[in-house]
C-alpha cells in the first residue's frame, strides 16, 4: 500500500455513484476490524505469509494423517537415503499413477558409506488413503488411514535420517510442535506483559518506576544463560510433555519485557485522554478501565507485537535444543531435527537434513511479513496521510 492512497483507494474502482456512496457509507460505519481486514487484504505479500502459516498449521495439526508412517518408524532398507521424487514415466513408458523405482542399499567397501542402488525394472506405485501404521488423531480418534503410501515400503519425500526414519514425517510433527511452542510462549508472554505492563502504565509513579527497573534487569541479562539456568532446573523426572510446557513458560517468562514496555507506553499515552477521565469519573474500576477502555484502543498494535515475537520463540527453541536443553527424543521439533543437520557429514553427504531449516526460515519470514502487513493495515495513518 502506498502512502499516496486515499480513502477511495481502498475500494474497487466503480463508476456508479450510488454504489460509491454505499461503499463510502459502509466505510464510515465499518468497525475497526473490518477496516484492518480491508487494508490487509490489499497487502499481497502479507497475505501470502498468512497462507503459508495456515498451511504449516494444517500440516502440524493433521500430521498423523498426512504422514506416511510414525515418527519412530525405521525403514531399514533406506538408511540416510536421499529424497525420492515420484515419477510418471520411465524407460518403460508413461503411467497415470505416480510411482518410484525399487531401491536397494549396499555399502561401499572402501568408504563404508551406504549407497542406494535404484532398480529401474521395478515400479512401486503410490496409492492414496492407504492403511498403514496405527495412530490416534489428537490422542483421541484411533485410525490407520494415511494420505498416501506405497504398495510396498515407504515413500520418502524428504529422504531419511541416520536411523532410516522418514524425514517428511518428522518434519510434519516438528512443525506442529514448534509452532505450538511459539503460540503458547507468545500467549504466556502476552498475559504476563498485560498484567505487568498494565499495572505500570496505569498506576504510574513509584509502581511504574519499580516495574521499569525490573523490566530493565530482565532485559540486560543475556537470554541463553537464563534459558540454560531455568532448563537445568527442570527436575530429572519430568516427562517430555512437562518439559514441553515448561519450555513454553520459560519463553513466556523471558519474552514479556518487550511487550510489557509497549503496553506501558500505549497506556501512558492514553491515560490522559478524556474518555479515560470520563470513565474514572463515572466510577469504573481500574481493571475495567484497562480492559474495557484502554486496551481495545490499541489491540491491533498488540496483535502486531505478538506476531512479531513469534520468530524469537521459534528461534529460541532451536537454540535451546542445540545446547541439548530443549525437548528430547522421541519428541521432534525443528530444533531437534536441525541438531541432526549440525555436522559436516550432513553438509557433504546428506544435504536433505537441512530441509527443516527451510521450514524455520519460511516460518520466520512469514511471521515477519505478516506482522509488517498487519502493522501497515492497523496503522490509520497509512491511509489518511499522504
Amino acid at each position, binding site marked *: 500500500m502506498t502512502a499516496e492512497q486515499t480513502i477511495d483507494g481502498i475500494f474497487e474502482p466503480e463508476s456508479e455513484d450510488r454504489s460509491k456512496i454505499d461503499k463510502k457509507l459502509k466505510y464510515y460505519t465499518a468497525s475497526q476490524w473490518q477496516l484492518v481486514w480491508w487494508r490487509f487484504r490489499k497487502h499481497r505479500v502479507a497475505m501470502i505469509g498468512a497462507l503459508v502459516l495456515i498451511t504449516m498449521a494444517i500440516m502440524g495439526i493433521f500430521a498423523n494423517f498426512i504422514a506416511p508412517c510414525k515418527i519412530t518408524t525405521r525403514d531399514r532398507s533406506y538408511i540416510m537415503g536421499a529424497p525420492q521424487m515420484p515419477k510418471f514415466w520411465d524407460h518403460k513408458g508413461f503411467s497415470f499413477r505416480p510411482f518410484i523405482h525399487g531401491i536397494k542399499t549396499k555399502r561401499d567397501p572402501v*568408504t563404508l558409506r551406504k549407497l542406494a542402488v535404484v532398480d529401474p525394472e521395478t515400479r512401486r506405485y503410490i496409492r492414496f488413503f492407504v492403511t498403514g501404521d496405527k495412530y490416534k488423531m489428537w490422542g483421541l480418534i484411533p485410525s490407520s488411514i494415511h494420505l498416501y503410501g506405497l504398495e510396498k515400503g515407504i515413500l520418502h519425500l524428504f529422504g531419511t535420517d541416520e536411523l532410516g526414519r522418514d524425514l517428511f514425517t518428522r518434519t510434519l510433527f516438528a512443525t506442529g510442535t514448534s509452532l505450538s511452542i511459539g503460540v503458547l510462549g507468545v500467549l504466556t508472554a502476552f498475559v504476563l506483559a498485560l498484567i505487568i505492563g498494565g499495572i505500570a502504565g496505569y498506576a504510574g509513579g513509584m509502581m511504574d518506576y519499580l516495574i521499569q527497573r525490573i523490566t530493565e534487569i530482565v532485559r540486560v541479562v543475556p537470554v541463553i544463560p537464563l534459558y540454560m539456568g531455568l532448563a537445568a532446573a527442570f527436575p530429572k523426572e519430568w516427562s517430555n510433555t512437562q518439559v514441553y510446557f515448561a519450555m513454553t513458560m520459560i519463553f513466556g517468562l523471558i519474552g514479556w519485557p518487550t511487550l510489557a514496555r509497549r503496553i506501558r507506553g500505549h497506556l501512558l499515552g492514553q491515560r490522559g485522554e478524556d474518555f479515560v477521565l470520563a470513565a474514572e469519573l463515572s466510577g469504573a474500576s481500574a481493571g475495567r478501565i484497562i480492559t474495557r477502555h484502554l486496551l481495545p484502543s490499541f489491540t491491533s498494535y498488540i496483535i502486531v507485537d505478538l506476531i512479531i515475537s513469534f520468530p524469537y520463540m521459534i528461534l529460541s527453541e532451536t537454540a535451546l535444543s542445540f545446547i541439548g536443553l530443549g525437548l528430547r527424543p522421541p519428541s521432534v521439533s525443528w530444533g531437534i531435527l536441525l541438531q541432526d543437520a*549440525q555436522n559436516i557429514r550432513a553438509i557433504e553427504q546428506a544435504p536433505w537434513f537441512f530441509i527443516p531449516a527451510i521450514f524455520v526460515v519460511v516460518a520466520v519470514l512469514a511471521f515477519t511479513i505478516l506482522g509488517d502487513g498487519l502493522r501497515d493495515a492497523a496503522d490509520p495513518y497509512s491511509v489518511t496521510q499522504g
Partner: protein
Amino acid sequence: MKAGQWKPGRAVMMLAAVCLMIAVSFSPAWSKAVTATNMQGYTSQYPLQFELDEFEKQCKCTLTFKENPSISKYNEQIKGNPSPLAPVKDRLPTEPLVIAPYGEIGKYGGVLKGLSKGTESGTSDLLSIRHVNLVRYHDDLKTIVPNIAKSWKWNADFTELVITLRKGHKWSDGAPFTSEDVVFWYEDLILNKDVYEKTPDRWLFAGKPMMVTAADAQTVVFSFPVPTPGILNRFAVDYGQPFQPKHFLKKFMPKYNPDAEKLAKEKGLKNAGELLSKYYGGSDWKDVPTPLLSGFDTQVVPTLESHIVIKDSSTGRHMVANPYFHIVDTAGNQLPYLNEIDEAYVKDKEVQNLKITNGEVTFKQQAVFIEDFPLLKENESKGNYQVDLAPALGENVFYAFNTTVKDEVLRGIFNEIRFRQAMSLALNRDEINEIVFLGQGKPMQSMPAEPTTVSFVSDSQKNAFIEYDVDKAKSLIAAMGLKDKDNDGVLERPDGKPFIIRLVYSNQGAPVKLHELVRDYWAELGIRVDLKEVSSDEYRAAANNNDLDVTTWKNDGVSAPTISQDFTAFVPPFGDYFNPGTGFGWAAWKTSNGSQGIEPPAEVKQLYSLSEKFIQHPMNTAESNKIATEILDIHVKNLWKIGTVGEIVNPIVHRNDLGNFKKFAAKTYDYYWTYPYRSFQWYLK
C-alpha cells in the same frame, strides 16, 4: 629360494650378502642403517630395540651420538634448564636405549599438530605420544620391552620385582635420575597424607602398601605383600609414572626443606601442601594444570618424556623436545625427531572433522568415531592424510540396570535375572551393528575381559542371550507378572505406576543413535524409556551417586594388561569412576565393611574373593584361566552389563607426511593409545 634355481643367480646373491656383511661390520658409518624393514641380520633380546652394548657388540663399533641441530634453541625455551647445553653424549644416559626405526632414519624438525578437548579432557591421545614408563608393550601387544628400566627380575612367587635403571639417565633439566626418585614417588607422594588424604587403592595390594627401596642408584626393589605378577603390565600401560623428580619437588616439602612453609607464604599460599600441589596436582595424570596455566611459575616439573610443556593456556598446550631424552636410533641420533608438539583444544567434533579434512591435524585417534569414517575417507586426498580402522579392544557398549537403585520397586524388577535376560533378548544387535557400527562389528555379550586379548573366554559366553527374540523377551516379562492393565502400551509396575526407565547418557559414552534404537527396542516390550543427554561430568557424578536407573558407556579397561593387575571390572560397580557399571550399593557395602550400602548376594561376594586370587597368578596359566572362567560364568549368568556389539573398529588419522608411522594393531586406551607404536621415532617428511 627354491632348490634347483639358476645357480649363478644364487651365487650373485650370496656374494651380495657377503659384501653387505663386510660393509656392515667394517664401516657402520656409511652402511645402511638398521631399521625394522631391514634388520641386516641384527638380533636383539627385545624386538626392534637394543641395549647399547648389545648393539655395539653386533656392529663391532662404537656408536657416535648426534643431536637435533636446533636442540639448544628449544633448551632455551625450557625455563630453569642450564644453558649452554652439555654435549649430547653427556646428556644421554651412559646406557641409552637404541631403537631400530620402523622405516628409515628420520630427519629432525617439524611440529606435530594434535587436538584435545580441554585442559583435562580428551588429552591422553597426545599424552601417550610423549609418554614414558618403566616398560612398554611392543607393537604386537604381547611382549613387554624395556624403556626407562634397563631390565627387571622377578622372584619365584612374584612378591619381589627388581628394576634396574639406566646409568647416567637425566631429567629434562639435566639433574640425575636415580632410584631415589622412584622411592620418593611412592614414599613421599603416594603415601603422603598431605597429598593423598586416602592412599589410592590402586597402589595398595590386598589393602596393604608395597615396599619400594633403593638398593643402589640404579636398582629399585618393589616388594609386595601378596603375589602381584601383573604389576609389570601396569607399568607398561599406565598413564601414571612411578617416579617423580625428588631434587625438584623436595624444595616444597617441609620434610626436606625447613624453609618450605616460608616459601609458600612468600608466594601468597596457605601452606607448603598447597605449594606442592601447584607442581604435583594430587594425581599422576600428566595433564593436570601446570603452573604455567595460572601464571604461578614459568617452570614446570622436569620430566623423562620425549617432550616437555613450555606453554599452557586455556586454548592449548605446546611442547618441545626434551634435550635429555634417553633413546637414540641405530645411527646414534638422539630422539625424538619431532621438534615440537602443538595441542589445540577443540571441543566441537565438527570443527575437529573440518580440521582433519583440511589437513591441519598431523595425528588424531581419540574421539574420532566410526560414524565419521565415510566422511574422513572420502576427503583423504584433499587433506593429504590417511584414515585407517583398528580394532577398538573391548569397546562393547553396555546397558547396566542399577541393581541397587534408590526406587525400591525398580530395584525389585532390576534384580530379577529374567528381566535382564528379556532386555538383552529385545535388542536387535544385527541392526545396531549395521546402523551404528557400519556393519563392522559382531553382536556380542558384554565381557569383563576382552576376548581377543585373553585365552579363557568361550563362544557360548560371548553369545549368551544375544539372539533377537522379542517373543521370548515378552514371555519372560509376562512371567514376572508385569502387565499393561490400562492398555496404554506401557506396562504397569507392581505399585501401579507406569514402567518408565530414565536413560541418562553422555555423547562421549556411546553414539547417541544407539540409545534411540535401544529405546525403540524396549518400547516393543511395553517399557517406556525417557532419554536425557548430559555432559560426561554430570553423567559420571550422577552414576557414582547411585542416581541413575541405567548406566551406559562403552567398556574399557578390560584387556589383558589391565585385568591382570586391576580387578575393577570384575567387582561392583564393575568399572571405575570414569565408567561405572552397576551395584553401587554393593560396592559401598564392601568398602564400608558392611556398615553402609546394600548387602550383595552370595555370588557377588564370591566375585571379590575370586578376583583377589585371580590377580595373584600370572595370566594365561592354568590356575588363572580356571578362576577367570568362574568369574566370567557368574557375569554371563547375571547379565549385569548387557552388551551390544563387540569387535568393533574405530578410525585413526595420520597425515601422509608423518614418517615411521606403523599401523596400529588396536586403537585402545587399554594399551595407552600410541605408546606401543613408538611415537618417539615418528618424524615429518
